[in-house]
Structure formats: C-alpha cells, structure tokens
C-alpha cells in the first residue's frame, strides 16, 4: 500500500494574546490508503488539531501535509473548500446535522456542490442512507432520531460524495455503548468493504480496538504506535 497521507515536520502554534501555544511539534506521519487509524492521547495532546489539519479545516504553522499527492497546506481557502468537498468526509462527536432538514436532505448537502441533478442527488442520498441502515428514516428530522441514528446519518453525509478519506472526531463520544458499537462496526465495514481510509480521534480504548492501528499523541508529539491483528 502507498501512503495516502504524508505529514512532514508538522507544527501548529496557536496565539492567544501574547501567549504562543505549540499544539503540534514536528509531527512526522504516514497513513496508508485503506488504513483505519485511531488517534489517542490525553486532552490537549493535539489529537483534534492534527485531525483538523489532515481534514483541511485548519492550516499548519510549519511543515507539510500531502494527501493523495496534493500539498493541501499550500491551497488557498477557497481551493481548500473545493478539495474538502470531494476528498474528505467528516464525522463529529455531536453529529452536527442541520436540525431543520430531514435525514435525506442532510445527507444530500455535500451533493449540492456538485453538478448532479436533483433526482441523482436524491438517489445517491438514498443509497448512502441504505448503506448505514436508515433508508426507512430518510424523511425524519434529526430531532426525531436517536443519537446513534443521528451519527449514522452523519456518516451517510460523510460518504455520500464518495471521498477517499473519512476523519472522525470522537464519533462515539456522545453515544451509549450499544450505539457506539454499531457506529464503530459501520466504520469498520466502510473501511473493509468500501476501502475508505479512516482516521478517528477517540478517548475510548474500546473504540480504538475497532481500528487497525492506534497512534498515541502526547504534548503535540507522536509517542507510540500499535498495530492490531485484523479482526
């Protein structure tokens, strides 16, 4: 396998007034295409910052990020937005669905940025919802769904435009044990059956067990990596 994500000397420094906080310190990392990587570490270790940088939501202070052969740290804000729309799917801890839209409309959102017809968008959204097992809840609004179901809608939204990379920030952090297991199993399926490369930030060692690899971050540096036998 070739490296889908190549990170070299990546540093991120936040400025809070006069104070400079170095959140990531010369991180070097390769993530292979088709990997399912769990990123763990204590609060403030820089997990979410690293995930945001890989997802193109933030820009590094120093170093480079190459994804699929493209240096995303050099892209302008608008080019980065276009890149995100086709290359990355995002799953957040609190689902971040738009409450006034139905599940189908939420899933359809990334497709509004494409040239697909309304009928095609509707079909693709239906397929994505079917994939996460929620075809029968397409017309429901987020408020009418359980937490686990909302997270599955969020996953459908993340995969509907068929991105190579999924970045998940604590996707089970707000779920009960059973719903969390369902969501993690779904992510595993997407990785195994659909070849999605997944990077998942989690505090939960049990959640990390669903990944193929686990990386530990501490004080902005990678400290350890563990590989699991295939499930």
């Amino acid at each position, binding site marked *: 396998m070739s490296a889908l994500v190549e990170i070299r000397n990546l540093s991120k420094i936040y400025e809070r007034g006069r104070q400079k906080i170095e959140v990531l310190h010369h991180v070097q990392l390769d993530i292979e295409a088709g990997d399912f990587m769990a990123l763990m570490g204590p609060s403030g270790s820089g997990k979410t910052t690293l995930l945001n940088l890989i997802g193109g*939501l933030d820009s590094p202070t120093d170093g480079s990020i190459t994804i699929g052969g493209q240096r995303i740290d050099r892209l302008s804000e*608008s080019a980065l937005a276009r890149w*995100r729309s086709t290359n990355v799917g995002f799953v957040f801890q609190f689902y*971040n669905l*738009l*409450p006034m839209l139905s599940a189908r409309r939420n899933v359809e*959102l990334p497709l*509004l940025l494409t040239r697909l017809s*309304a009928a095609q968008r509707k079909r693709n959204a239906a397929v994505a919802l079917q994939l996460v097992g929620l075809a029968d809840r397409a017309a429901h609004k987020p408020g009418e769904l359980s937490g686990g179901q909302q997270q599955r809608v969020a996953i459908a939204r993340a995969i509907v435009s068929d991105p190579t990379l999924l970045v998940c920030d604590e996707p089970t952090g707000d779920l009960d044990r059973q719903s969390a297991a369902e969501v993690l199993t779904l992510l595993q399926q997407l990785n195994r059956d659909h070849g999605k490369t997944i990077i998942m930030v989690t505090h939960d060692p049990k959640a990390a067990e669903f990944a193929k690899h686990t990386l530990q971050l501490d004080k902005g540096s990678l400290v350890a990596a563990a590989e699991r036998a295939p499930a």
Partner: protein
Amino acid sequence: MKYLQLVWSAMFRRKTRTVFTLLSVLAAFLLFGLLDSVRSAFANAASSVAGVDRLVTVSKISFTMSLPKSLLSGIAALPGVAKVTYANWFGGIYQDPKDFFANEAVADNYFDLYPEWQLSQAERTAFHNTRTGAVVGESLARKYNWKLGDKIPLQATIFPQKSGANTWTFDLVGIYRVSNPKQKSQEAIFFFNWDYFDEARAFGNGNVGWYITQVSDRTLAQQVADAVDSLSVNSDHETKTQTEQAFNAAFVSQYGDIGLIVGAIMGAVFFTLILLTGNTMAQAVRERVPELAVLKTIGFSNHSVLVLLLVESVLLIVLGGAIGLLLAGVVVDAVRAAVGEAVPMTRVGAAIWLRGVGLMVLIGLIVGALPARRGMRLRIVDALAGR
C-alpha cells in the same frame, strides 16, 4: 434553485420569530403601498393634464381673488390665442360635507378647450340651452347614481343667491368621460352654467375666478402668458399666467410637499424595520454558527455562505413585503371603490411594485450584510469548538 430549500428551511428554523418578523415587514410595506399610492396620485394630479397648450390666468395676489370679466376681450384679441374661457370656484356641498367634490361655474365654451373630455354634441347643446344645466364626470355620476334629467341641489358655502336662498338646484344635462386612466380623477368635477351663477349670486357679479387660454402654438405659450399678464400690469388686478401643468403642480403643493412627507414617514418606518430585522438576522446567524461551520466543513466556500445568508435576508423581506404590497393593493382598490376619486389614491400598479421590490431587495441586503459577513468570516475550527 437547488439551494432554495436550504435557505427556506434556515429561514423557518424558528417559526414564531420568523412569522413575527414577516408581520412587521408586511406592515411596513402595507403602509408603503398606501402612502406611495397617495403620493403617486398627487404627482399624477400635477402632471396628468393632457393640454400643455392651455394657460391658466389667476390673480397675482392669490388665486382665490377674482378678476374682472372685461379682461376676456383683451385676452381673446392677443396674437397666438386660439380660444379663451373662464370659470369660478363655487364650493357647494351635496348632502354631506364629508362627501365633498369640486364644483365650478363655467362659461358656455368651457368644454371646447378640453377635447380629451368626451361629451356628446347633444349634451353640449343641452348645456348651452339649459340655464340651470350641469355637466358632471362619469365617476362622480356613478358614485351618486345620477342620471341625465336628475335635479341636483348644492348648498352654497360661498355664494348665496340674491333671493337669500342658499340652495342652488341644477338639472343634469351631460355626463363626460375621460378615457385616459391617468386622468380619471378629472371625472370627479361638477360643472354648471356661468349665466345662471352670475345672474343669481348675491355678490361678485361680473368677476371671474380664472381664465383658461388655449394657444394656437404651444411654443408660443410663454410669449402669450407674458402678453396676458401685461394687459393688467400696474392695475389693481394684476394677473399671473402659467401653463395648466405648472398651475396644477403649484396647486397640489398647497397641500404641502407630499413626496417629502411620505418620504419622511417611510424613512422612519424602514429605519425601524432595518433595526428590527437586522437584529433578527444577527440572532439567527449567531444561533447557527455551528451549522454554518458544518456547511464550510463539507466544502461550501466563504463566498457561498455569504450569498446564502444574503439570499435568506432578502427572501425574508421580499416575502413579507410582497404580501404587504398585495394587501395594500386590495385596500386601495376597496377605498377607491367605496369613495371613488374623493380620496386621491392611484392603484398599486407596476410603478409602485417596482419601487417596492427595489426597496425590499435593498433593505434585505442592508439587513443581511453584517450577519452574512460574520458567517463568511467565521473560522471552522473555532466555530465547531464553540469559541
């Protein structure tokens, strides 16, 4: 169009708040429709006269002061004068002072100077032959259900009869029509025979209120006006002659600057509306910061977010404003149907709609500008982290 559902849903995210905002926009544009209808009516009154070749001569001191009838032959003899006639304000009341309409005593040839008023030859002859004859506009006749042959009594407010009687009774012998919709307000006048008026009135006999002169060539209008005024220069009845259009504009301005008054009222209303809806939009965007961050996360550019929020703001104002203008149209039509031309209001037509929609878009853009800018500039990571 594909974003419309997104904008629409966002707009009705908080239904109660949106409905109340829509109601306030509706009220503002209902008021705009009504006031602009009145303003347009006054503006039309000043400019809708057909004849720019007619001059009005009144006393230089005040148009309420009389002029001697002896000026008639002098004016008629001036070069460039085609026809001349005269009239006097009567100011009579029919039944109820609230239902006031214009009424004037006019010379026999008065209608010859107004070819745009359609009056049959038979009716003209009847007016000529009937000493107590009166001719009214079709709108006025319809309003009071008058028919030819009716006897119409007017109560004098200025001119009692020599006999001491205050009631003047007229025989309706003609009904004229004005086909130009912009000049329909001219159908609300009651004309009657000069001879009856001048012979029977208790005072002022031999004087006229104003002269109307038709020039043979409209390019000579100013020259003729100067010549008319020179007839009475340095006399005790100096005159002021101007085109009918200029006279009407000056007459309308007696009411005050309607445009300025309407503008001032609407300025205050729209200023309040901008504050109110601006606050609503700002609040709506503040509440949706994480959702806007999600849109940006999945690939919406800063520019797209700016446009979405501006469209939402404009749509909110246009929706409420359009309903308001529709209602204004219904109200104006109802008022016109009930009281005819007595209340100066034009129909809420294309011109008012054009001005209204322009204002709606402008206010929508003003109201949405700051919240949209905020949405455009928000940083995804800060917004997602709730900072």
